[in-house]
């Protein structure tokens, strides 16, 4: 049976811009162990063309898979958290459901168990592989996940307030969070992010003081359009929501829309 919180999570993720970490890998989960496994398998389940999926966790784990047609054919590289389990019989083997389904699931569960962040980079396989092989079907692996999971409320509230605000405004060309639980996270074209980084560079503390003078209280949200970039007229928004502090870039014409979103979000 399909769980309603899964549907909600999926709908939410479809409505969000992708998040990327410092290594330019796409973040696909930042939750508990079950969510991490589910996100990893879901990524496989959405991969139709031949791809090498390279998963990383913030605990130092790494898993490289050859994937095609929603199926895992091989584990090409495996590095467990903190360097543990250096050998695994599944690495390099053509996987089959009859022999490896349970063991693969256990490997993935151990890999992502204590991770707070799971990210993925998809690339064209360096070496050709036998695409006619059956491998492990992601849909079957997904069924192995225990039925208990996060509540619907927690699924809806995934991500920090700043992240939810920024991803909820389509006109924002790029953003950068420099302080708070999502510090270092950014979105947008690399050139846009580079400009924001330059704006923030060495003066983040000054911007915090700058915003503080306008806030109605120490924990109150505050944002300011602090100017525009010299080379293109994009407006620079500086914001503070809770302990999150960062910058965003948007076309000047979109400022009224941003103000509406800001107000709706904070009420």
């Amino acid at each position: 049976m399909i769980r309603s919180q899964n549907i909600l999570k999926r709908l939410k993720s479809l409505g969000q811009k992708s998040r990327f970490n410092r290594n330019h890998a796409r973040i696909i989960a930042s939750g508990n162990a079950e969510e991490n496994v589910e996100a990893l398998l879901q990524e496989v389940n959405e991969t139709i063309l031949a791809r090498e999926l390279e998963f990383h966790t913030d605990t130092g784990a790494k898993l490289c898979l050859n994937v095609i047609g929603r199926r895992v054919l091989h584990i090409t590289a495996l590095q467990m958290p903190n360097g543990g389990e250096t050998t695994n019989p599944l690495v390099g083997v053509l996987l089959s459901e009859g022999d490896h389904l349970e063991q693969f699931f256990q490997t993935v569960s151990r890999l992502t168990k204590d991770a707070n962040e799971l990210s993925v980079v998809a690339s064209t396989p360096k070496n050709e592989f036998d695409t006619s092989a059956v491998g492990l079907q992601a849909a079957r692996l997904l069924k192995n996940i225990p039925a208990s999971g996060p509540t619907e409320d927690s699924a809806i509230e995934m991500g920090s307030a700043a992240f939810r605000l920024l991803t909820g405004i389509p006109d924002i060309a790029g953003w950068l969070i420099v302080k708070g639980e999502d510090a270092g996270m950014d979105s947008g074209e690399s050139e846009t992010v580079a400009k924001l980084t330059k704006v923030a560079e060495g003066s983040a503390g000054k911007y915090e003081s700058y915003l503080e003078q306008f806030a109605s209280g120490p924990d109150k949200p505050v944002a300011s359009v602090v100017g525009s970039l010299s080379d293109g007229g994009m407006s620079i928004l500086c914001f503070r929501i809770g302990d999150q502090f960062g910058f965003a870039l948007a076309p000047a014409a979109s400022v009224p829309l941003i103000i509406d979103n800001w107000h709706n979000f904070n009420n």
Partner: protein
Amino acid sequence: MDISEHLDAINKAFDSVRITAFADLSVQLVLADATKSDIGQELLDDLCIKAANAFECPALAIDSSLIDPPVEAIVMTDEGILLALRATEFSPNALIFECDYDINLKDLLEMARNTLKKTGVE
């Protein structure tokens, strides 16, 4: 029309504008204002200081080639919007507005810019 009449016109045209003021930011002094209710001088002084500070973007002090000095400053808090406009980036004179969030910002900006042009304030 003098500047006070222009401020009254803006104040009447927008229900969501709580305070309309014209100030000399270089000395942080409100020279004229139009409000929907009686407000004290302290509040006007505070608004003027905030407007002056809103134009002081920290990045300008570090690398002025990266950011154009702002002609318009917008600050959003949980209490409303502070909007300040000046004719040029180096003009000491500014129009300042304190608004509710349901303000039609596009129309207000247009009227405010026209006011700056008509009054020849620089």
